[in-house]
């Protein structure tokens, strides 16, 4: 009978809960979105030409549009990916 008591720890250990090993990795971001927006371009203080100023302003506008595209893409990326990530239950 004493020998049977040896089986008791096995019985107790057998009651341990199963721990499922499933890990979900948060998705990676496209590389293009990881690039920070640069500062706006400054105008050469010695210039007196309006065309030079307009050129710089045009570049800055383009810069803004690029950054806007990236911000919009970030919003879209986050909305999509968080919906997908949270759909796993």
């Amino acid at each position, binding site marked *: 009978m004493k020998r*049977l008591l040896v*089986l008791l720890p096995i*019985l107790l*250990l*057998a*009651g*341990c809960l*199963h721990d*499922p*090993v*499933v890990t*979900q*990795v948060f*998705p*990676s*971001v*496209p*590389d*293009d*979105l990881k690039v920070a927006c640069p*500062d*706006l*371009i*400054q*105008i*050469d*203080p010695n*210039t*007196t*030409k*309006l*065309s030079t*100023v*307009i*050129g710089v*302003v*045009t*570049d*800055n506008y*383009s810069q803004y*549009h*690029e950054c806007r*595209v*990236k911000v919009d*893409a970030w919003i*879209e*990326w986050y909305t*999509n*990916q968080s919906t*997908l*990530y949270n*759909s*796993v*239950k």
Partner: protein
Amino acid sequence: MWFLNFLPDSWLHIFVHATVITGVVVLLVGKLARHIPTIETYGEILKLVGSIIFLFGIYFEGSYITEMGWRAKEADLKHQIELVQEKSNTANVQIQYKVVTQIKTIHDTKVVVHEKLKEAAGKIDAECKLAPEAIQVLNQSAKNPTAQVIVTGVSK
């Protein structure tokens, strides 16, 4: 049942059912032992051993069902994660394509505007000479005002 994690499903199935069946068989043999001359003295022991094996078997059956439930849940989660990762990769490719296309369009438009500006530069500059203050004001507005802001007193 921690040690059941190491056994494949089919082995587990056989092991659990075999334990119950062995318990029942040993128990029955113990009950019938008094009618079998060669083992009649072991009847009580066989009944005891049979009962213990049977009880273990019943316990394992319960654990087996739980274990299978967990394994099914695990497999389902893995399948869901695979599908989500696939969709996530597709979404990433679509966003990347969209960003690259839009930025290319912006660049192309900028080039066109610069070309037009180059053509019209003579006209634009002919009757207009900028005061240095105008440049100063524009440059000041183009500077990032947050670049020199130092945030203090924020603790986690």
